[in-house]
């Protein structure tokens, strides 16, 4: 067991150990406490009224009230008032101790080719690609400490494509608000790689049916890690706000690369990002790095590896790689216009693919309607590292092994039916594949149209 894995196991175990405490507070217990508080507040208020009444009846007939008695009753009055106030505050705090929130999306999508986009959407009606259900519980342990857990069930679990709606714990952590501007969290957290990574499944928060595939298709599969993070609000003036986030951790997971399922371990994942806000404008910059090791290699990569070793006459392995993600993002929404976009760079050692990907979205609010347009582009940037002879070169029928290129134009309409419920309709044209598979399981060989309809809710 690597030392780092052991270290990250500690906060998770801690967080897990605390969860029974959160569950132990049953509804009955909460109700009982409320009743207790209510009873005590009523008793105090009655006492307060009695003292007030006593004070007036005593004070009225006596022309020169005895000063000591007067001040004693005043003191008692003040003390009782303080007690009532603090009881009411305690009551309110108790009331807000356990917060439950959730999100759900139900979607249907189809395209005009049999090759699957994001290993899911193809020329049949697909109800799983954009369907997800999440439930989050925030339990306040004390004034500064919180336990938060979030379960997410995906229609398609990208990492384990045969399991549908298998609930997974994406967040389970203890958070400690050290100062109003400094928060420490430990446990299972979401990898904050790109601008919307931490809430990429909460469809209600963005205009599209799903986050742009060019940027989120591959990276979006790295979801949670076990470790720590620090959130710090930088003091800025003039209406600007900045939040700095730094994290460290790792986790074993499964991702789909080029249509095959691969077991990958992220170790010593570290990252730092800054979010700047000024009124309706948000800016994001992030840098992340990790050691990536493959616990299982798909047949195609294993073959490639063997062939490469034969070709190069030496041992080339893809067992442990250094990978980095860099991202810049912006988001502006003033209630009329929406502008957002991200530019991202992904690098990995040796002959595995490096990519450059971006998208830009523009939209305009017309009451509850938000028509929007998005342009997205992905391309591999290190093709020259992957010019291999047959059989490697032919494995994916691409100009060079593992090359991926695609552009897409998306026209969408979001309709905010009521607060908490949004309906989305989208048409997407994917082109410029240049013979590569792009984000499909195999090269479609032509331009692709994708239609999607999604209902998103938060509650």
């Amino acid at each position, binding site marked *: 067991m690597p030392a780092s894995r052991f270290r990250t196991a500690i906060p998770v175990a801690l967080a897990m150990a605390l969860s029974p405490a959160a569950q132990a507070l049953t509804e009955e217990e909460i109700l009982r406490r409320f009743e207790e508080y209510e009873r005590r507040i009523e008793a105090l208020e009655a006492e307060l009224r009695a003292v007030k009444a006593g004070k007036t009846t005593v004070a009225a007939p006596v022309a020169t009230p005895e000063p000591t008695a007067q001040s004693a009753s005043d003191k008692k009055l003040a003390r009782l008032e303080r007690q009532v106030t603090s009881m009411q505050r305690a009551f309110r705090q108790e009331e807000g101790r356990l*917060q439950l*929130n959730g999100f759900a999306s139900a979607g249907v999508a189809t395209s005009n080719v049999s090759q699957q986009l994001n290993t899911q959407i193809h020329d049949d009606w697909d109800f799983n690609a954009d369907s997800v259900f999440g439930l989050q519980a925030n339990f306040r342990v004390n004034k500064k400490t919180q336990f938060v857990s979030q379960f997410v069930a995906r229609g398609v679990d990208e990492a384990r494509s045969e399991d549908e709606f298998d609930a997974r714990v994406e967040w389970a952590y203890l958070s400690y608000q050290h100062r109003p501007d400094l928060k420490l969290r430990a446990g299972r957290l979401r990898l904050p790689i790109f601008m919307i990574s931490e809430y990429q499944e909460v469809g209600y928060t963005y205009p599209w049916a799903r986050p742009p595939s060019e940027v989120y298709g591959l990276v979006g599969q790295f979801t949670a890690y076990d470790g720590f993070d620090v959130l710090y609000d930088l003091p800025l003036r003039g209406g600007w706000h900045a939040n700095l986030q730094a994290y460290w951790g790792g986790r074993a997971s499964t991702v789909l690369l080029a249509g095959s399922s691969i077991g990958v371990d992220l170790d010593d994942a570290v990252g730092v990002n800054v979010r700047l806000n000024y009124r309706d404008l948000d800016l994001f910059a992030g840098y992340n790095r990790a050691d990536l090791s493959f616990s299982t290699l798909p047949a195609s990569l294993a073959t490639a590896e063997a062939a490469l070793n034969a070709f190069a006459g030496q041992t080339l392995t893809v067992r442990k790689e250094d990978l980095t993600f860099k991202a810049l993002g912006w988001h502006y929404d003033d209630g009329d216009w929406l502008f957002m976009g991200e530019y991202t760079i992904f690098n990995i050692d040796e002959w595995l693919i490096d990519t450059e990907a971006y998208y830009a979205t523009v939209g305009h609010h017309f009451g509850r309607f938000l028509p929007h347009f998005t342009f997205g582009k992905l391309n591999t940037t290190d093709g020259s590292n992957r010019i291999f002879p047959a059989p490697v070169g032919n494995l994916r029928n691409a100009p060079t092994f593992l090359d991926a290129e695609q552009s897409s134009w998306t026209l969408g309409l979001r309709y905010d039916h009521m607060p908490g419920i949004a309906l989305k309709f989208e048409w997407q044209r994917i082109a410029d594949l240049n013979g590569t598979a792009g984000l499909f399981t195999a090269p479609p060989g032509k331009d692709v149209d994708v239609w999607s309809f999604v209902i998103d809710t938060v509650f």
Partner: protein
Amino acid sequence: MRTVLHPLARLAFFGLMLTSSAARGEVLVIVHPENQVDAPTTQQLSDIFLGKERLTPDGRMVQPVDQSETTAAFHEFHYKVTGMSSSRLQAYWAKRIFTGRGQPPQRVDDDAAVLEMVTTDPTVIGYVSDKSEPSARKVRILLRIP
């Protein structure tokens, strides 16, 4: 075909009707009479109600209390101060809730409930419609937003 509106949808619809048809009145931003906090600008007020600021400009801890979506005051306040519709507000808070970056302010039923909270807790900052005419003895009016 007869359409049956969900009760919540009806409430939301009612809320929208209130803002569009009722004459826009003043919104009063109030605190406990003992709270000597400086009056914030609408931008600072927006930051407080959106959880971007936990302190007032003069460094005091404040606890914002919002109103329910069904009140006219809610729509008045958010139209004038945060500039957000109920839907955008909900999306804004969804981002913060599901990333563990914050919970929205507590929402209470009406002006009376806000008044009660402000009069009993010196850290609370709330808003009420000008129809509620709070007495200066019970609350301190920080700001009148026309």
